């Protein structure tokens, strides 16, 4: 899998070194930016309250810069915290975040001159939903830390979207905190076969199978709208599900309403 991913072998030690370097550079940059008043606030990550989690963190004092960290759990998209802000914002951006920032600039959600982008080359984020206990890792090691070590160095443990990533380096930035990492080059065949594997799988199904596939996928949805809150592209002042005159989509957890909500949200995001 490692060679397949066109990435160099990485072990836990190397990951730790990279994380440490990145963290130091990020703190240094944050301090400098706040002292030089290039931005009023720096948006980055701090440690979460549980292992393997991080939280978005806004700092406005140089003395707070040491809160900021970098590791392979910084999966949240910080572009979400930038939109609509009127002050000058410095934001830490991976490849994916930077592409969303471009989108926000194009759609006038933020002015480029109010934005200071600290680019971070990304080695991929770990998929927390992959259960460590299910893999053979547990049998081989006793402590939580050892579990994590193996977990982190296994490239299969990357998030799905990181496995198929095409821009690991930021596409737009004011400064980079490290040398760009190697981008994966996809041949046309690989692109069709590997990158869109999950899409092809659905396309190959019959119509009724496709319908039930998405129904199963959405059966656990409770309409909490966390997906809408986490989505960097969802910024409509009034979402279509909140419209009441006329009310096109019901508000409950009727399976058809749930299906309609997800269908229209997806459509709305890729159209316009």
């Amino acid at each position, binding site marked *: 899998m490692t060679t397949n991913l066109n990435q160099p072998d990485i072990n836990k030690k190397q990951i730790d070194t990279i994380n440490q370097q990145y963290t130091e550079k990020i703190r240094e940059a944050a301090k400098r930016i706040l002292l030089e008043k290039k931005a009023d606030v720096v948006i980055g990550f701090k440690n979460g309250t549980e292992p393997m989690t991080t939280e978005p963190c806004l700092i406005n004092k140089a003395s707070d810069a040491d809160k900021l960290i970098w590791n392979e759990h910084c999966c949240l998209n910080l572009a979400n915290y930038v939109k609509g802000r009127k002050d000058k914002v410095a934001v830490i951006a991976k490849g994916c975040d930077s592409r969303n920032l471009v989108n926000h600039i194009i759609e006038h959600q933020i002015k480029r001159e109010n934005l200071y982008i600290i680019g971070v080359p990304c080695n991929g984020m770990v998929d927390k939903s992959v259960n460590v206990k299910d893999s053979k890792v547990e049998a081989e090691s006793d402590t939580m830390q050892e579990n994590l070590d193996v977990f982190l160095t296994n490239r299969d443990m990357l998030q799905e979207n990181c496995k198929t990533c095409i821009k690991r380096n930021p596409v737009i930035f004011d400064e980079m905190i490290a040398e760009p990492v190697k981008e994966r080059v996809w041949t046309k065949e690989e692109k069709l076969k590997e990158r869109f594997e999950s899409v092809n799988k659905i396309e190959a199904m019959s119509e009724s199978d496709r*319908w039930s596939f998405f129904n199963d996928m959405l059966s656990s949805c409770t309409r909490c709208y966390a997906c809408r809150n986490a989505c960097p592209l969802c910024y409509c002042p009034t979402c279509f599900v909140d419209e009441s005159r006329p009310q096109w989509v019901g508000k409950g957890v009727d399976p*058809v309403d749930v299906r309609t909500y997800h269908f229209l949200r997806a459509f709305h995001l890729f*159209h316009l």
Partner: protein
Amino acid sequence: MSEFEPKIITILCNWCTYGAADLAGVSRFQYPPNIRVIRVPCSGRVSPKMILSAFHNGADGIWISGCHPGDCHYITGNYYARRKFMLLKNFLEYNGIEQGRIHFSWISSAEGVKFAEVARDVVESVRKLGPAKYFIKKEFIDSNLCNCLNTDNNPDKNILEEQAA
């Protein structure tokens, strides 16, 4: 005898296809009566919300028609519509809706013959597919049935009342 008669929600642009429907009527061209027409100022006015809402409420098919690309009364409305609908149609089919439930066409107000032809094609293709299976909201259909039963001229209601008495 009891062949399935589809209900097709038809959304027509005021300036072109609605005129074509008018012309078809005035010229007495025959076309099936399965279409329910909604008039909108422009095909660009149609939102995917409306299309899904039609399915929620028990439509078996949707047909949306506007001016030929380039002939929009509002210059660019139908370009937006065309983009929107191409994506929507593909995406609905990706989700499992059968090909042939959703139709889009461009008919000018001089094309009464074409209107009748397309209407026949649309009704035929939806008839072949049978009643809609997906995106139907049960409560809507049930409440609509109740509304029918409650109207005074509903023969079923009279029978029910007779039985009750």
